[in-house]
């Protein structure tokens, strides 16, 4: 049985809830009081993850941290289609890894801005926001050209991969960090496509497809 150590308002935790919902994997949640309780820095949690970061996923005694690593684990272990993290095409696997890294950069900027505004974290807000805009410009351009070539997803495949799941949450939550998506139409269309993936689940602050028509 899988246990997810989870904070509802965390985009990186949501990533895993989203992936497991799409894959139809059942799991238990142990709520961790990230804010205001700072429970991710508590003794019991640090024993589970010495880095003091959420999420942590435990599967049959195996303790995993790092949301992208866990995405790969879930896809390799529970995705019977083999499409979410394909390993038979080296170029595609590498491309997915590039976007996993990109997702971490989004966390380092867009999520930092959101934490500063919503939970009073002490990051440099303007730097975080402008960093996020730089990434979103790159991503918007990438998606725009992909659409011109008939592709709908971040990587060169005719189906979504863990790359799309990894980049979705903090892009969809960017406005809570004061980062408007007005100038990124291709990103808005891509967010809507992710929302229509079968098995999609929302989180507080991220609406399902019927409620949010970003593309216009």
């Amino acid at each position, binding site marked *: 049985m899988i246990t997810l150590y989870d904070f*509802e308002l965390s985009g990186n935790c949501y990533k895993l809830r989203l992936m497991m919902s799409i894959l139809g994997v059942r799991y238990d949640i142990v709520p961790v009081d990230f804010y205001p309780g700072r429970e991710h820095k508590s003794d019991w949690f640090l024993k589970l993850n010495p880095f003091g970061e959420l999420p942590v996923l435990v599967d049959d005694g195996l303790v995993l941290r790092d949301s992208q690593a866990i995405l790969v684990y879930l896809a390799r272990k529970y995705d019977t289609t083999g499409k979410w993290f394909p390993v038979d095409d080296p170029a595609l696997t590498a491309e997915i890894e590039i976007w996993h890294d990109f997702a971490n950069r989004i966390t380092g900027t867009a999520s930092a801005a959101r934490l500063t505004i919503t939970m*009073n974290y002490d990051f440099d807000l303007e730097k975080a926001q402008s960093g996020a805009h730089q990434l979103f410009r790159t991503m918007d351009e990438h998606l725009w050209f992909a659409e011109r070539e008939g592709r709908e997803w971040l990587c060169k495949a005719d189906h979504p991969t863990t790359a799309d799941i990894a980049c979705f949450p903090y892009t969809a939550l960017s*406005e809570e960090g004061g980062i408007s998506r007005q100038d990124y139409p291709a990103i808005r269309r891509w967010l809507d496509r992710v929302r229509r993936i079968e098995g999609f689940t929302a989180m507080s*602050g991220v609406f399902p497809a019927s409620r949010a028509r970003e593309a216009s």
Partner: protein
Amino acid sequence: MPIAPSAAILDAWHVFSAAAEIGPGPYRSTLLLDTRLDYRRGTNGEVEVRRRDTGAALLVIERYGFAWTSLGSPPDDLFSIPEFYEPDRKNMSCGSLGVNVSAPRAVENFLDMGHFPYVHTGILGEEPHTEVKEYDVEISYERDEILATRCRFYQPRAALSADEGQDVEYIYRVPHPYCSVLYKSCPADESRLDVIGIFCQPMTEETIRAHLLQSMIDDENTITAMRRFQQTIFGQDKPILENQYPKRLPLDPRAETPIRADKSAIAYRRWLSQKGVNYGVIPQAA
């Protein structure tokens, strides 16, 4: 140039931090009414607050797990929530969350039951139970607060302690221009009411920190789980609040459609007008 708040706001107590988040050590900083404040817990355990612009020390009281200060001449005490002091209550802050909205918009949304089925689907409401039934609203001039009673709403999951849907009874108080306190049927004990407070810290006219209080009757669930429940709900409200336009609350009764501005909202806007509140609102044209 920020506007100068009128006496109704300048002389009021305003929340600026959860008490538990104020420690000794270096000063922390926040914004209240466009004014930068620095605060810490002094060696005697008392909270110290000063304005950065003038260096003036400000008055502080700690109530309901939060610290409150004033930029003017505040009353002797804050509005009372006697239930908070009942010994078997689980009292907790559910966080102080920054929101890109005016304080009055946040309070008005808190008073509105109509959004439950659409925004808090499966928790505080669910289609087809969308009707807001008739309820009573009064402005009590003696207590200087708004009271909405006999509010009822069908809720699939009224609180974490609820294991089935139920018709939930609500009482709303607005005892402060930027604060509201909600009493609702307690799934764990029919004779009592759970208490949920939203205390808005007006950082600027259009940005707040919403300080969330829960005072619950619940032996089963942990504080962490109860916080999570409230944060899930508030996290659903947040994008709705941030997309309201205009961000300041219009006080002219003709400014917005009567469907949105329902009975308690009309009373709230009238009360703000009568008090001469000018901050976070679009005042009625004279």
